[in-house]
């Protein structure tokens, strides 16, 4: 078929496929992904310990600290992911179609154990991207919580998309599985547009109402 030979051979299958994704050198005690990046497993007791320690040390600022750490982590992750995927597929990530980028990001989240991600870009024209995550990092391991618990994940999402968009973006959690919801939900936008979201969440506004309110606000 005409044109196939000239198309970039970016289809090598799933970069994250489990059998090839991680390899551990037991003698050296080192796990690396297929691109050679060193990887580390963090168990739920570590994550709980981290959260508890931050709450003890920082009080109400603990979530902000986790979010900031997540954002820095997300930024570095995005830079590394861009290189690894570009090298693997032989094609710059910036040239991937949105669908392929989304497919890779969903797999990246899953294979890092951050939950199963779903993007909703239907409100993109309003400057919003919505994320749904089933089995998110903290929601499945925290027993009790007074508010949303995915500040680390919201930071990661903000960091990732700040890098790929080339501008500083923020991400706020609008729905948490600790309240009985099926998934955790987040909104991503310019920081100024999301300033009221934590207050709305605390006041009991649900995810759909928050999204509707944000769609009315023009940044």
């Amino acid at each position, binding site marked *: 078929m005409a044109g196939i030979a000239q198309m970039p051979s970016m289809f090598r*299958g*799933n970069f994250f496929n489990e*059998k090839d994704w991680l390899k551990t050198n037991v003698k050296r005690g080192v796990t690396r992904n297929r691109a050679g990046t060193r990887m580390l497993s963090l168990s739920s007791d570590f994550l709980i310990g981290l959260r508890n320690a931050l709450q003890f040390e920082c009080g109400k600022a603990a979530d902000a600290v986790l979010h900031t750490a997540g954002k820095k982590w997300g930024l570095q992750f995005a830079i590394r992911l861009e290189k690894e995927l570009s090298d693997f597929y032989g094609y710059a990530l910036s040239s991937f179609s949105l669908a*392929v980028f*989304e*497919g890779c990001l969903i797999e990246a989240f899953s294979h890092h154990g951050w939950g199963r991600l779903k993007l909703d870009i*239907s409100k993109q024209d309003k400057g919003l991207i919505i994320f749904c995550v089933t089995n998110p990092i903290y929601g499945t391991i925290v027993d009790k919580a007074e508010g949303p618990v995915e500040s680390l994940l919201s930071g990661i999402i903000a960091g990732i998309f700040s890098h790929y968009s080339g501008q500083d973006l923020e991400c706020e959690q609008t729905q948490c599985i600790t309240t009985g919801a099926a998934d955790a939900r987040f909104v991503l936008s310019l920081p100024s547009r999301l300033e009221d979201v934590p207050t709305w969440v605390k006041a009991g506004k649900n995810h759909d109402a928050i999204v509707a309110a944000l769609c009315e606000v023009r940044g």
Partner: protein
Amino acid sequence: MNTEIENIIRDSECRYLEEGEQKKILAYTASLPARFRAAAAVEAREEVVIRGVGEQMRRLYPNFERYHAKGWEKCHRDIQISLRFTVQAMVWNNLEMQEDKLLTWLASILASSGFTPKFNRETYTLLRDGIKANVSQEIYAMLEPYLAKNIDILGNIPEPAMALV
């Protein structure tokens, strides 16, 4: 890798292989020449089969390329790689391989691209039927569960908010 053999290796740690386990491994290795012949048969007819799928899908979806630049060429590529992973999974007798190495990821991409589950089911059913028409009954029987896997995974993506096919 062959899942059954991997399981045997894991289950037989700290002991010797039982007679039944040895037989299973030998049965698999004895099947390899037939699996390689099947793979060669598919390779020889790959282009004919995939081109046939493309022609039929163009008739069913005449507006497809309005939504996707070089859409049919990309479909050709998708079908080609799916078929090659199908054959590889058959060679390794591993029904989990396609899903992990390709199909879950490809399903996300096609869903994000506005493909419908019906479009995918039709594509990969035509692929299955094209293979059936171009290889022997015996070879088709070896491939059938793996061809069905493509239909099962890719044909069950969620309906898009807006179909782009």
